[in-house]
C-alpha cells in the first residue's frame, strides 16, 4: 500500500463557484415569495398541491447545490432519494386506511354513525353528554352549532 502522490490519494471535492451559490439563494428567496403569494390565491384543493410542489422544488435546489448532491457518489443520492420512496409507502397506506373511516363532522370531530346519523360512541360530543369531561365555553358552542346531520 504505497502512498504515491497520485490523483486518488488526496481529497478532490468539487468546489462550487460563489456565483452559483448566490443564484441558488436568490431562487430560494423568490420561491418563498411565490409560496406566500400562492397562499393568498383561492385555489381550493390545489393550494396544498401547489404549496407542496414549491416546497419540493426548493428542497431539491438545496439538495443539488448547497449539499453538493450533484457531484456526490451515486450511492449517496440513491439512498437519500430512496428513503423518500419508503416515506411515500408509509403515507400511501396510512392515508388509504384512515380516509376510509366513517364521515367525520368537521366542526365537532364526532364520527358520524352511518345508520343513525348520530355520533359514534366515545367521540368528543358524546363524551360531553356523558359529562366525563367538562368542555369550555366555545366547544359547547361548537357542539350546539354542529347538530347531528349539520350541513356539510
Amino acid at each position, binding site marked *: 500500500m504505497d502512498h504515491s502522490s497520485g490523483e486518488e490519494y488526496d481529497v478532490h471535492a468539487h468546489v462550487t463557484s460563489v456565483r452559483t451559490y448566490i443564484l441558488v439563494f436568490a431562487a430560494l428567496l423568490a420561491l418563498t415569495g411565490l409560496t406566500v403569494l400562492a397562499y393568498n390565491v383561492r385555489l381550493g384543493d390545489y393550494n396544498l398541491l401547489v404549496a407542496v410542489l414549491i416546497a419540493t422544488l426548493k428542497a431539491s435546489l438545496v439538495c443539488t447545490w448547497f449539499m453538493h448532491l450533484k457531484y456526490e457518489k451515486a450511492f449517496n443520492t440513491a439512498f437519500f432519494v430512496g428513503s423518500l420512496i419508503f416515506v411515500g409507502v408509509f403515507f400511501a397506506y396510512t392515508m388509504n386506511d384512515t380516509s376510509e*373511516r*366513517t364521515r367525520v363532522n368537521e366542526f365537532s370531530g364526532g*364520527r358520524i*354513525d352511518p*345508520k343513525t346519523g348520530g355520533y*359514534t*360512541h*366515545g*367521540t368528543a360530543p358524546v363524551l360531553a353528554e*356523558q*359529562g*366525563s369531561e367538562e368542555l369550555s365555553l366555545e366547544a359547547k358552542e361548537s357542539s350546539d352549532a354542529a347538530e347531528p346531520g349539520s350541513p356539510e
Partner: protein
Amino acid sequence: MTKPEGTLQLPPQMSTLAPQVDFLYYVIFWVSVVFFVAIVGVMVWYTIRYRRRSGVKPQPTGHNTPLEIAWTFLPLLLLGYLFHEGFKGYVFGAVAPDEAIEIRVRGMQWNWEFEHPPGIIELNTLQVPVHEPIKLVMSSSDVLHSFFVPSLRIKRDVVPGMYTSMWFEATSLTSKEKPLTIFCTEYCGAPLGIDNSALPNTNHSTMLASLNVVTRKAYMKFLEEGPPMPAECDGNPNPAACWGEKLRVSAGCQSCHAVDGVTNAPGPNWKGLFGATRKFVDGKSQTADENYIATSIREPQSQIVSGYANVNMPPYRLSDKQIDAIIAYMRSLNGTSAPDK
C-alpha cells in the same frame, strides 16, 4: 372438510362461515405438511448420503438458473390461490346481508354489554336466534377490546371512538349449560392489586361473555320480558335479593364493590350503603334510597361521592327489574329485608 363437531385442531363449526374457513385452513395445513416433509426429508437424506468421509472431496457447486427461476415463481401460483380464497372468505364475513338483526355491542374494561333492537340490554350474556343473520355493530367506551367467538370463526377489534361491524349466522342451538364463550383478544389490562384475579369479569383474561343460540320463539319471548331471573333463584325465599347477588357477579360489580362492610376501594362498599346519607364531592348530600342507587348505576358520573372523584365508573344500563334486584340485595346486606317497596 366440514366436520361440525370440530377436529383436533379446530373448534366445532357453529356458523355458516366456519366450513369455508376450516376448508382453507386444512388446504394450507396439508400444503405445509408436504413442503415441510419435502424440505426436511431431502435435507436429512443429503446429510446422510453425503456425510463427511475421509478421502471424498466435495464437488464444486454448479448453478442451475432455470431451477432457481422455478422455485421463485412457481410458489406464486399457490400463494395467489391462497390470497384469492382468503379474501373471498373475508369479504363474506365482513359484508352483512341487509335483513340481519343488528345488535349494538359495547366493550368496556372487563364487561360486554349487548343492546338488542328494541332496547333490551344484556350484560355479559348474549341471546341470538338460530339460522338468522346477526350483525354486530361494536364500539368501546375506554380501551381497545376484541370480540372473538372461536366456534363462529369471527373476530373484530372493538375500538373506542369508531364503529366496527361484522356478522354471523349461527347454524345450531347451544345447550343451556354449555353456551359458546365470547373472548376478548385485544389486551386490555387488569386493575392494580385486586386480590383474586381469577374472578369473572375482573381483567382481560376473564372478560368473558356467554353466547346462547336459542330458537326464534325463545328469542322473541326474551325480547318482551327482558333478561330473565337466573333459574337458581326460583326457590329462594327472597328471589330478588338472590338475583341481585348473582347480578353483582355476572355484571362485574364485584371487581370494584366489596360487600364485607370494610373495604371501600376502588368503589364504595355495598354493606350498610342503603339508607346511609351520602356526601357528594360538591358538598350536597342525600340519603341512599331507591332512585339514588338507580341513578348512580345508570349515570354514575352525575353524582360522585367525595373520595371517589378519580374513579370513572362506566354507565350500566340495566333493566328496571335488574336494578330492583340489586336494591333488594343491598337491603338484605343490611339485614332490613322488609320488601316494603
